[in-house]
């Protein structure tokens, strides 16, 4: 495969004209840089998925199993019976098009099949043809079509160009959530063994080793120890976190991405410093070492299998409650799915902050608190000594991740934190934040490298809003609460708005946090000189 070399000024030349032919008669071309490689058979074997076979997306023949058609139709039937959302969303769309230009992939690509309504019609057309009377009789007249191998390819191509961000659902008069349709489509494609490498690999890793990156227990520990050295250099303070410790009050779970690569690692350092400063009785786990859940991008069952570790570990260690790190889809899963799958969590206690005594009423059943809620409460109760000026070199804006915005509604806590640790904060335009926030463009396991054109196109609306505040206010730091954002926005912002960095909210907290017994800080968390401190040392 050739390297992706398109320049931003060419990529933004987006063609919004619709093809001459009707969409059903317009064949789908599987285009380079827009799709991800197929997964390795061994990864699917690890989690015992059906119909595992070797295939390549760019090949003509995908080697579908002999009974592929029946498998899909039976699968659809099952899902229609299991999910009212799916049944309803197949039935009631009026094709008003209100959702059409709300999808970052449509805005960035102009491809009509990236309009949420048309993406869903890819599935609806097959639904009509096989499950409705009108569709069976009137066929194409009723918007129905036959299921063919070409349809499977089209599904695969376009349902892996949806990041399940739910932005379309905000604008639909019936709340039709194309993300829900995408989830069903991906379940179906998995029945045929058509998985992405970038999803299949992390899922297998997470199943066997506890985290997407496949970090083994000793490696997790040594990664954290590496951060401790840096923290010591910055603050002069020695921190000694614990792993898999029974009897701790709190289990801390965060996405493994933050242990692995910049700038996520700085956020992880932020957690370590904050917890040390508070003297929090908490432990990390190497078994439940993943907050995120790539299983969620394959099937509901797989998501549940991976997620089971969090409660199981909390129970084994005998903690009182669970604190979760900054992540997007992790929180969709924990907020809207975990308790339903694995609960009731009656072996845990209703979460109470040991520092402020605040009861986290909103987490009393699931017993898992988001760290932004936890920290906002600390700041509100004056439990942290903060020196905002240490972030004075940063002009910050905040990106709401799709899941915490539209699948939870955590909008104000991170803003409250940022405003208390930074002097310079500016919002992006109203139509691009909070419930209308744009996806980073690479969620749901699309953060591979071979689909870079897709990622940059999908990342355009977000980057475009960053560019706006950069030009208007000189913004140079894009804060967020999501591990995938930290990795993917770095790439898309670098492409569209060079000169802007990306950070987690707790990196900013760590910069500002005045710790007991710390030496005078001259470095920020990235080990770069603090402004005004370059000369004084």
């Amino acid at each position, binding site marked *: 495969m050739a390297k992706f070399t398109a320049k931003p000024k060419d990529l933004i030349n987006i063609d919004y004209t*619709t093809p001459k032919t009707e969409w059903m008669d317009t064949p789908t071309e599987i285009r380079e840089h827009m799709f991800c490689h197929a997964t390795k058979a061994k990864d699917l074997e690890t989690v015992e998925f059906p119909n595992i076979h070797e295939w390549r997306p760019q090949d003509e023949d995908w080697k579908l199993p002999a009974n592929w058609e029946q498998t899909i139709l039976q699968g659809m039937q099952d899902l229609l019976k299991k999910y009212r959302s799916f049944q*309803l969303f197949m*039935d009631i769309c009026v*094709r008003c098009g209100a959702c059409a230009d709300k999808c970052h992939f449509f805005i960035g690509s102009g491809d009509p099949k990236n309009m949420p309504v048309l993406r869903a019609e890819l599935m609806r057309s097959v639904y009509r043809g096989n499950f409705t009377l009108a569709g069976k009789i009137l066929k194409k007249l009723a*918007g129905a079509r036959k299921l063919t191998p070409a349809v499977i390819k089209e599904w695969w191509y376009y349902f892996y160009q949806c990041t399940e961000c739910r932005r379309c659902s905000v604008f*639909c008069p019936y709340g039709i959530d194309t993300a829900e349709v995408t989830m069903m489509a991906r379940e179906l494609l998995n029945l045929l063994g058509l998985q992405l490498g970038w999803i299949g690999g992390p899922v297998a890793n997470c199943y066997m080793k506890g985290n997407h990156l496949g970090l083994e227990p000793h490696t997790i520990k040594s990664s954290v120890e590496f951060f401790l050295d840096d923290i010591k250099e910055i603050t002069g303070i020695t921190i000694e976190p614990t792993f898999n410790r029974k009897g701790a009050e709190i289990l801390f779970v965060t996405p493994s991405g933050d242990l692995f690569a910049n700038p996520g690692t700085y956020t992880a350092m932020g957690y370590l410093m904050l917890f040390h400063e508070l003297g929090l009785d908490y432990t990390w786990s190497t078994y439940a070492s993943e907050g995120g859940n790539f299983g969620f991008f394959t099937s509901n069952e797989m998501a549940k299998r991976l997620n089971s570790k969090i409660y199981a570990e909390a129970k084994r260690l005998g903690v009182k409650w669970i604190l979760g790190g900054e992540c997007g889809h992790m929180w969709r899963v924990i907020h809207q799915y975990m308790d339903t799958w694995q609960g009731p969590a009656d072996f845990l206690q209703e979460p109470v902050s040991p520092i402020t005594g605040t009861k986290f009423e909103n987490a009393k*059943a699931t017993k898992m608190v988001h760290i932004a809620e936890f920290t906002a409460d600390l700041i509100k109760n004056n439990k942290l000594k903060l020196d905002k000026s240490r972030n004075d070199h940063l002009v910050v804006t905040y990106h709401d991740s799709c899941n915490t915005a539209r699948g939870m509604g955590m909008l104000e806590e991170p803003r409250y934190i940022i405003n208390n640790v930074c002097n310079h904060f500016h919002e992006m335009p109203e139509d691009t934040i909070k419930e209308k926030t744009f996806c980073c463009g690479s969620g749901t396991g699309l953060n591979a490298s071979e689909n870079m054109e897709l990622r940059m196109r999908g990342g*355009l609306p977000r980057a475009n809003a960053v560019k706006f505040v950069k030009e208007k206010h000189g913004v140079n730091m894009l804060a967020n609460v999501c591990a995938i954002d930290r990795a993917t926005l770095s790439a898309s912002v670098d492409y569209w708005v060079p000169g802007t960095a990306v950070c987690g909210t707790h990196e900013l907290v760590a910069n500002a946090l005045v710790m007991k017994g710390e030496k005078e800080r001259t470095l920020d968390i990235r080990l770069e000189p603090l402004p005004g401190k370059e000369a004084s040392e």
Partner: protein
Amino acid sequence: MKMLLPFVAVMALVAAALMAVNVANLHFLFGVAIPYIAFAVFTAGFVYRIVKWASSPVPFRIPTTCGQEFSLPWVKQNKIENPSTATGVIIRMALEIFLFRSLFRNIKAELRDGQKIVYGSDKWLWLAGLAFHWTFLVILVRHLRFFVGDVPMSIAMLEHLDGFLQIGVPMIYITDGVILAAIGYLFIRRVLLPQIRYISLPADYFPLFLIAAIVVSGILMRYIVKVDVVGVKNFTMGLVTFTPVIPATLMQGNGAWFFLHVFLISVLFAYFPFSKLMHMGGVFMSPTRNMINNSRMVRHVNPWNYPVHVHTYEEYENDFRDKMKAAGIPVEKE
């Protein structure tokens, strides 16, 4: 094709009705039998669809949250767009159903100067959609005067309000003009906006044409061809009391327009349960809108939840015991 076919279909329906009545004298079939059948199909079909939706479970609590959630006591919650109580959900749903709240959010994305994306407010669809549905409802309610013996005060008042721009006799209803304009807008936007044209199916044009034909035939009867209203009332009262009669005044001359109107409405009724028009029932049941966002506070039960294969801690420790011990990480079995 996508547009022509539904147009031809509606024209064929119009022709069929006019010919059946004028030429073949099928007044009973078109005035009595078909309306009864259509009503039965509508009722059975509507109930069937609702029951089908209602009987498929809602395994997860998946509201689309559009504002701040219930959180710490000092964080201001958006109690409607992100409801944590049933009251909040009721208000959220009422705003959706009566005011098309989500459609009101509509914005238009545009690539400007080939280098930046800008968003502008775009409320026309909301306005036309609201105008269409509300006038449809008012007209429907006005029609109740034909189905009850003594016209209740409320309907009389509605008629009065609707006709407050008194222009000549008969009184001209505002709704008649508004619904035509709204349908016109909905149609024109479907044709003119390339993306919307691209996603449109015959099933999107057909109801628009059909409803337009119903409205036009109604307007014709009221303002131009003048059908015998007393006869109509006798006829409709006969229908609802299951003692159908066809008054002589309707059997001749302009009466055919009335049978056309009744026939088209029957088609709409019979078509309703099989079509996207079912959004009327579906909008109440959409789990992204009608659920309370309290899934971390109150456990939501999935009726088909089942146990799954997991990789247990024990298996994990078996895989890594030596490495864990070497790294000083506690283990269960030494």
